[in-house]
């Protein structure tokens, strides 16, 4: 077990941050380990559940086709990436704003 050096006083007031890099590592590990150890197709289409339904009820036909289908896998991934990017942007903005506010307050208080 490695030991984490004591933080400076200002950082230790944010004690919640100390475990954060380990959280990130664990999340990355959870995503990467299956890729290394499990051989799978990591498929793109919503295949398996549809297949299971067809297996149980072979004559089932989807009765509604959907309003819009992305023209290709590339377009679909573009839309998914946009979704993630917009969300991440908002999170970064809000946390950054909160952090700046906290630090300014701290600076005012120390003065």
């Amino acid at each position: 077990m490695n030991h984490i050096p004591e933080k400076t006083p200002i950082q230790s007031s944010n004690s919640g941050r100390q475990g954060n890099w380990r959280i990130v590592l664990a999340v990355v590990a959870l995503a990467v380990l299956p890729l290394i150890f499990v051989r799978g197709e990591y498929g793109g289409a919503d295949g398996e559940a549809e297949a299971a339904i067809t297996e149980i009820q072979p004559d089932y036909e989807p009765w509604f086709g959907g309003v819009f289908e992305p023209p290709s896998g590339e377009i679909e991934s573009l839309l998914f990436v946009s979704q993630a990017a917009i969300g991440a942007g908002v999170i970064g903005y809000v946390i950054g704003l909160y952090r700046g506010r906290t630090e300014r307050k701290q600076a005012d208080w120390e003065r």
Partner: protein
Amino acid sequence: MQKNHRLWHLLAMFGLSVYLVFGAVHPAQAMHIMEGYLPVGWAVFWWVLSLPFFVWGLRSLSRITDEHPELKLLLALAGAFSFVLSALKIPSVTGSCSHPTGTGLGAVLFGPSVMTVLGSLVLVFQAVLLAHGGLTTLGANMFSMAIAGPWVAYGIYRLFANSRRQKFGIFLATALGSLVTYIITSIQLALAFPAASGGFIAAFAKFAGIFALTQIPLSISEGLLTVLVWNWLRSYATDELQTLKLLRPQA
């Protein structure tokens, strides 16, 4: 506290290793119910069941923004968190990909009914623009992701809220909320498509093998990521969290 944390990570790693070794290997897609893949009766049933929750959510949302306009930014954060996490298709031990729901954080912060609205917005976005999920199945998907998940997360969180293990409570609440979402999805499909032999139970086992099994490691990821954001909020948004403590009992 620090030691507990480390022990937990070790346990998580151990659990994952066991799961990797014994987990079944077959490709699966674990996501929302696809457009048109619920019979009309069931589609209507889940819509009717979900709509009152949505209206309730709208009311508590407007109450929060009326009483505490300064919390709008935090609401945006909760919505954005769900937006990001449900866009991330992450590989899982079953050899297929699924995505977390991200609704647990908002449920812990604002209560479950607010997340019914925010989670539904995510689902509408994905149904309309991404051909992921669907409008006919939106009621059912709302019930699993935007109602059942947040309510379970909120309930578990409440058990830990006043204890000293609040952070662990948040992890457990959001991880199980994410997992429950897909268990509900399996139940919904099994109800609509009971197997010829074995009926509901056999069909549920089959769908849960597809949806819930894939979700287990992703649920852990979701719990960890929620704790990450929670750590930031505890450091930088103490005012907002203070305000929300007053809000929580009514939620």
